[in-house]
């Protein structure tokens, strides 16, 4: 390939990249892709997709990467092209903007005059140095103190304000590029999940995407977990975990975290994410026993694995096993369907003089279930306070501050680009045969209507 061809190939690519048509096409394309990404649920299990789509549709979508669309190579390629387009447009426009900012005309000549939207011509009878001062003050009050260039029989006043506002959209675009850089930097971080039972310490994180295990070089202890409810309802008001960071066998930091208030240590964020009953089924139950022979009611506290005697009777009660989400398996054996307290159930044995009398399940949600058979007591599970585990989302994102910087630039830039303007005023006064001919010109790049009104006022001021 000759040097000429290379050059023209480069020029063609460049012309492609600086085209605003490309920008608009990319914006439309990105929107369309995003629509697909919201209509098809993302990152679900294959089983779920097979319920939604036929096998062939599933295969097609899967090949196109539609199930994790925002991380496919072609989506990233689109974003990259968008970024290149942005950068190329910015470079391409810079010389013109630079000229407008720093090499704008300070003398109103006839060529410039033709291009101006706002022009007023008037005559002055006299023009003395005193008038000169007055004009400088008048324009100065309006915009900024004008510069004055004197030629033979000509006076050129020029004033401008908001010159740098022409850079507003650069800030916006720079902000966008910085956000994308921040997002890329975020790839160096990680996102995972850790589960800690009350009283225990852990440093094991399960990674979100790969399910790989990562170990922190410090430990996190969950001292306590608490869930509170709105009065008289099952709606959770708050989940709280008291966490302690343990490094080199020393407690270095303690914090109570809740939703919307994470713990931050060495750039790693620990968020309250889930909770549940510890898998070992430990905890403490509050039980009410009603004697069927009319001997009264007893309330007592018993820990799983321990026995409590019923005062004034030969009976005692032993808590054998707790299940957070009671269910019966196909084999007739009881098991917990999940770690959530959806159907708390306690297995109890009642003892009489130390020998087993009967064994039964009691359910917190079904206080009137008492099992079959002739038994001396009705037993209710009033409350069960399990040993909880706290589920923490653990995140490290080194790019997040870069993203915030980009966001700040984007907002400031957009504000400047839309709501501030570069305003310029020229005033030319020529002496011709004892008369002074004045031409006033004005230009703005935004908010023309308001500028026109102010221009009118200035014109009236100058005339008088």
């Amino acid at each position, binding site marked *: 390939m000759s040097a000429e061809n290379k050059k023209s190939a480069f020029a063609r690519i460049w012309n492609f990249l600086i085209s605003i048509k490309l920008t608009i096409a990319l914006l439309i394309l990105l*929107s369309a892709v995003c629509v697909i990404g919201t209509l098809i649920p993302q990152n679900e299990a294959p089983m779920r997709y097979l319920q939604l789509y036929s096998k062939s549709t599933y295969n097609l979508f899967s090949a196109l990467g539609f199930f994790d669309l925002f991380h496919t190579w072609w989506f990233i390629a689109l974003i990259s092209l968008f970024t290149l387009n942005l950068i190329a447009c910015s470079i391409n426009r810079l010389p013109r903007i630079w000229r407008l900012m720093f090499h704008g005309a300070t003398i109103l000549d006839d060529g410039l005059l033709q291009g101006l939207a706002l022009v007023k011509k008037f005559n002055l009878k006299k023009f003395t140095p005193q008038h000169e001062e007055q004009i400088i003050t008048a324009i100065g009050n309006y915009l900024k103190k004008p510069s004055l260039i004197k030629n033979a029989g000509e006076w050129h006043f020029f004033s401008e304000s908001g010159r740098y506002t022409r850079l507003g959209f650069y800030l916006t675009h720079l902000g966008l590029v910085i956000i994308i850089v921040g997002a890329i930097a975020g790839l160096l971080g990680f996102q995972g999940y850790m589960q800690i039972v009350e009283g225990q310490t852990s440093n094991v994180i399960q990674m979100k995407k790969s399910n790989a295990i990562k170990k922190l070089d410090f430990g996190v202890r969950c001292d306590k977990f608490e869930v509170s409810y709105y009065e008289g309802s099952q709606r959770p008001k708050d989940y709280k975990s008291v966490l302690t960071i343990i490094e080199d066998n020393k407690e270095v930091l303690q914090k109570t975290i809740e939703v*919307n208030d994470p713990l931050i240590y060495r750039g790693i964020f620990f968020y309250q994410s889930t909770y549940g009953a510890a898998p070992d089924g430990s905890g403490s139950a509050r039980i009410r026993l009603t004697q069927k022979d009319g001997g009264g009611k007893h309330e007592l506290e018993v820990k799983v694995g321990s026995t409590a005697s019923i005062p004034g009777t030969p009976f005692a009660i032993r808590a054998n096993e707790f299940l957070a989400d009671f269910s019966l398996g196909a084999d007739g054996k009881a098991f917990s369907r999940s770690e959530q307290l959806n159907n708390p159930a306690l297995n109890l044995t009642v003892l009489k003089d130390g020998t087993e009398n009967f064994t039964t399940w009691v359910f917190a949600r079904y206080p009137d279930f008492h099992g079959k058979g002739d038994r001396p007591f009705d037993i209710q599970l009033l409350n069960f306070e399990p040993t909880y585990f706290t589920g923490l989302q653990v995140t490290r*994102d080194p790019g997040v501050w870069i*993203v915030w910087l980009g966001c700040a630039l*984007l907002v400031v830039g957009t504000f400047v680009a*839309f709501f501030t303007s570069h305003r310029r005023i020229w005033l030319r006064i020529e002496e011709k045969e004892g008369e002074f001919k004045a031409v006033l010109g004005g230009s703005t790049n935004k908010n023309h209507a308001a500028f026109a009104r102010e221009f009118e006022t200035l014109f009236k001021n100058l005339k008088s």
Partner: protein
Amino acid sequence: MISSKLLGITTITYLVCMVSYFTYLFFRNPKFGKIITGITIAGLLVHTAALGMRWYESYQLGYGHIPLSNLYESLMSLSWTTVLVYLIIEFRYRSKALGIFIFPLVSIAMAYASLSPNIQDEIEPLIPALQSNWLTYHVMTCFLSYSAFAISFGSSITYLIKLRKAAPKSAAAQKTGDELLPSMEALDEIIYKTVAIGFLLLSIGIITGAVWANYAWGSYWSWDPKETWSLITWFVYAAFIHARLTRGWRGRKTAVLSIIGFAAVLFTFLGVNFLLSGLHSYGSG
């Protein structure tokens, strides 16, 4: 509850406004115009009191949260920002024409919120994920942007109607046509200005949402449908702005883009909650 009654009064007032703005279109009595504006301002004041009252009542119930927590409260608050933005535009451009588009939108939204059996109008406690000051910043900036876009949408419809009416007539006939409606140039400017304001507010709304998400969920962006749709809306208006500022699109073309943009706004606000599921799903009840 007092707030519910006040909101009922507000809804009726806005229905009156809707009828009045249409009537005004036919009679064009300046005195009548002033009265309508007065009614609108009164409606907005009652509306403000109602929302304030609801906020206060939530404290009395022991919850204490700004009325932005469910669909009912969202529709009521969004109507409030829309009427507020509308009044600002009415004063700024001295034109009542947009009222005929804004008040049907607002009245329908409020009546639907009050009457639909699917919408809970009781004050409910806030789930832990929403217990944050960011709720106010995030939702209010988003709603103000939606309102600005709604005004832009109304102006675009007006523009297109005027365009159709104006086409076959002579310039003189056009002038005697309807001086009530802003001139084509003024409408074009309103369409652009409100998009510019809405775009800036939407950017801030998305960013405050990202900051909050980072603090509550540990990730500033999750491609959740609501987030993604807000980005789609942002793309559409970004295309509008670039088409206008760099390609010199004006009038009909930008009006159409603004209408497409508003469709995206509506889908972001309502469609996502009704048709798709995701992290923002608490907005639908």
